[in-house]
């Protein structure tokens, strides 16, 4: 579904990612781990087109997306839940969700209903401005909003930041169920339990390079991860 | 020999419409003089050139421009036009002994010293008296006055004018103000209309004048409208349909177009020459610049010197009849002198709008005081 070859990206004169290659299978799920500042978010931005590729190739669904605009990528099905929520603060919850389904025109009733079923808090607060929600509530909104776009590849950049344990459980359930519907997932996560629950394959980034890669279950329990990632 | 004469006029900026013509007139005159072999002063032939100091009608810019002219060894200055600039350059000019200024534009109070600064343009009082004469001659009983409060000359003489109107037995029913660039005068006009004056006097620039005239009519003012402003028909027409101007009277010192209409030969000559060179009409203020040029050069010839103090002395002793080529028919002071305390005295009159332009009222005659 998504294949990234020898990608390099960065900010101004600072190159953050060097020579990254990652594959996400159709309906597959990949977790990306790594210490702070490893370049995980940068990777997400490069995939969704917010940052230009300096080198390498991004192929999605058989099409070369390397130079495509963010909007084109969204229309192709690559949808990101950005790090740090990024809701539209002065718009209501409902409007935020409407924007989620921007590429499809007005949101379909069932899509909305699904989002509200998943996170009832959003239904309760549908007319509250998103900026007035608590941190965790905003995070849930960001997630629901991304689902509204009916992605074929969902990029999640630390979606559990600031979520309570129960909410993380809900998110895990949701992710597992949308994967079951055939959506591919690329998940950046610090929370290993979620990573384990959702991921099939795992990559570990370190200072902008792929340090380790392998089946998630294996990798996450290996000593190598403990050494490179947990800092023990 | 070369002789550079300086000018302070706004050739750029919003006032350039007025300033540019003056600058062009001076250049035209200098060129013609050079074509005739230059200006003969005491046996030496001087080739004239005009150095333009663009003041953009702003005080600080004007001072810088004057300083630049002075460092370029210029000792004679025409201008300024803008009343913001005239007082700002005054302290510098007052202090200078080898600098001579002839104001051809500003009518501000207190900018002429009669020693090394002279003015060929009228003073504000001349403007005001033109209106006053009109009011008394036409037996107007009551009048309301609207003044552009950013116009130095008009504002500073406003009180004097009000007093003299009352003294002449005309009732002042209201005094209102506006500002250049304003576009809505309805509040003032509503008030003034309610005070029911026979006449409404507008003091400022034609752009606003036309708008006020238009809006006064829309608000139902039926009395006589009297302008007190230099108002070339081209500008007036651009702001108001000519039909709505019918019957408006303008009382000011006579200017270029007026002299052309009265067939004053020098005016016709300038009109023709200017049109030939620049392709358009010279506009109102050209007459002042033209006359300033001739007055200065004649004074130089009379003094036989191009030293400013000598020329200044010649100016104080100059008679109206001494200067050839004048357009404006200056009224001589005692002994036929052109200046008194540095101020010349151009005659004023009223013109009435008819059809597409100002017309001299029937029977209007000009008393010729100069060689023409």
């Amino acid at each position, binding site marked *: 579904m998504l294949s990234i070859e020898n990608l390099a990206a960065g900010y101004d004169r600072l190159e953050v990612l060097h020579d990254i290659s990652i594959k996400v299978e159709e309906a597959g799920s990949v977790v990306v781990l790594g210490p702070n500042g490893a370049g995980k978010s940068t990777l997400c931005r490069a995939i969704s087109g917010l940052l230009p590729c300096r080198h390498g190739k991004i192929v999605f669904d058989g099409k070369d997306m390397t130079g495509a605009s963010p909007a084109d990528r969204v229309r192709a099905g690559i949808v990101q839940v950005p790090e740090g929520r990024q809701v539209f603060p*002065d718009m209501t919850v409902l409007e935020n969700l409407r924007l989620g389904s921007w590429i499809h*025109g007005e949101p379909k009733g069932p899509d909305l209903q699904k989002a509200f079923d998943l996170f009832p808090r959003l239904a309760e607060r549908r007319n509250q401005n998103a900026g007035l929600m608590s941190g965790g509530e905003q995070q849930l909104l960001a997630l629901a909003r991304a689902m509204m*776009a009916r992605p074929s590849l969902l990029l999640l950049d630390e979606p559990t930041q600031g979520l309570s344990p129960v909410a993380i459980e809900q998110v895990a359930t949701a992710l597992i169920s949308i994967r079951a519907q055939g959506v591919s997932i690329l998940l950046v996560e610090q929370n290993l339990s979620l990573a384990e629950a959702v991921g099939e394959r795992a990559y570990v980034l370190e200072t902008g390079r792929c340090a380790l890669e392998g089946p998630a279950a294996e990798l996450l329990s290996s000593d190598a991860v403990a050494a490179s990632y947990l800092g023990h | 020999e070369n002789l550079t004469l300086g000018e302070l006029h706004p050739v750029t900026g919003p006032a350039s419409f007025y300033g540019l013509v003056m600058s062009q007139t001076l250049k035209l005159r200098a060129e013609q003089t050079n074509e005739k072999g230059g200006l003969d002063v005491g046996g030496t032939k001087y080739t004239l050139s005009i150095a333009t100091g663009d003041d953009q009608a702003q005080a600080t810019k004007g001072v810088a421009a004057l300083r630049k002219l002075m460092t370029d060894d210029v000792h004679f200055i025409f201008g300024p036009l803008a009343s913001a600039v005239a007082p700002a350059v005054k302290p510098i000019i007052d202090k200078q002994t080898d600098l001579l200024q002839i104001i051809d534009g500003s009518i501000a109070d207190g900018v002429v010293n009669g020693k090394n600064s002279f003015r060929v343009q009228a003073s504000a009082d001349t403007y005001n008296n033109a209106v006053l004469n009109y009011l008394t001659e036409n037996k107007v009983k009551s009048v309301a006055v609207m003044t552009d409060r950013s116009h130095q000359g008009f504002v500073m003489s406003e009180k004097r004018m009000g007093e003299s109107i009352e003294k002449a037995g005309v009732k002042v029913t209201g005094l209102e103000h506006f500002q250049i660039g304003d576009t809505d005068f309805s*509040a003032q006009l509503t008030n003034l209309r309610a005070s029911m004056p026979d006449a409404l006097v507008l003091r400022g620039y034609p752009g606003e004048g036309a708008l006020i005239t238009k809006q006064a009519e829309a608000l139902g003012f039926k009395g006589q409208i009297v302008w007190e402003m230099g108002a070339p028909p081209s500008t007036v027409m651009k702001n108001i*349909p000519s039909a709505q101007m019918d019957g408006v009277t303008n009382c000011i010192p006579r200017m270029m177009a007026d002299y052309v209409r009265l067939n004053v030969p020098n005016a016709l000559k300038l009109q023709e020459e200017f049109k030939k060179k620049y392709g358009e009409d010279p506009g109102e203020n050209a007459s002042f610049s033209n006359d300033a040029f001739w007055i200065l050069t004649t004074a130089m010839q009379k003094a036989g010197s191009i030293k400013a103090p000598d020329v200044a002395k010649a100016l104080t002793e100059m008679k109206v009849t001494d200067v050839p080529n004048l357009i404006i028919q200056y009224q001589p002071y005692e002994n036929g002198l052109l200046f008194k305390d540095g101020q010349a005295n151009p005659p004023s009159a009223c013109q009435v709008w008819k059809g597409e332009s100002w017309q001299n009222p029937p029977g209007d005659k000009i008393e010729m005081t100069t060689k023409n």
Partner: protein
Amino acid sequence: MLELLPQQLVNGLALGSSYALIALGLTLVFGVLQIPNFPHGELYMLGASFTYVLVAYGMNFWVAVPIASLAVVIVGILLDQVGYRRIDTGGNLSLMISALAMSTVLQQVATLIWGAEPHTTLSPLPGVLRTAYFSIGYYQMLIFAATIACWLFVWVVLHRSRLGLAIRAMSQNKMAAQLMGIDLIWIRIATFAIGALIGGFAGSLLGASFPIYPTMGLNPVLKAFVILVIGGVGNLWGAIVGGFVLGILEILVSAYISSQLQDIGTFAVLVIVLIVRPNGLFGRAEVLR
């Protein structure tokens, strides 16, 4: 004097509607893109000048208005692409200087083409409605109607259209808007186009009652900023109400206090409004998180 009040209020409404019309486009661009678009005054001037030129060449006024307004749209989009897009992340103040510079350049271009002298297109709708209490020009009534129509138009675009949703999204979070699949470039162009359209339209209409000259936009744009703030930034309704408030205030001060103190009175009231309501009449306080 009180018997003149109806007339003065009508005067104020007429003046206010011209202010509001100019402020509307500015509010849109400022509210959405946070760009202090000083050249909005020049767009206004160009709307008037283009109309003048077209009418001078014999075109019917009502045909000239839409053509001139559309021509201004092109200039508006150019302004953005040349002067703002490059420095969009450079902070508000560099945008402001850029705006001032472009204002100057446009004024000068207009001076070089048409000269500094004022022009007017003759009013296409002369005539005055006279009642027992007040009189008002038909054309002023038309402008009043145009103002309300423009406000409705912008309101519908912003709050009832998909484009509007995207415009608001962009104004709140550019990055997230991109992630929704919104093409920022086009939204930006659309915003500027609408802003310029209204600016040009305002100039085109008002040019038939006011003199047209290169710096004619200066005063209106300053007033428009004042209105923007009185109403509350980004609030369309505020722009309309602010425009009328300012118009009526100016008239009342000038009528009942002194025409010499017109500006002092008006701006003193502005100062008081802001002291009492630091975010304008309809502005909301910023949320602190």
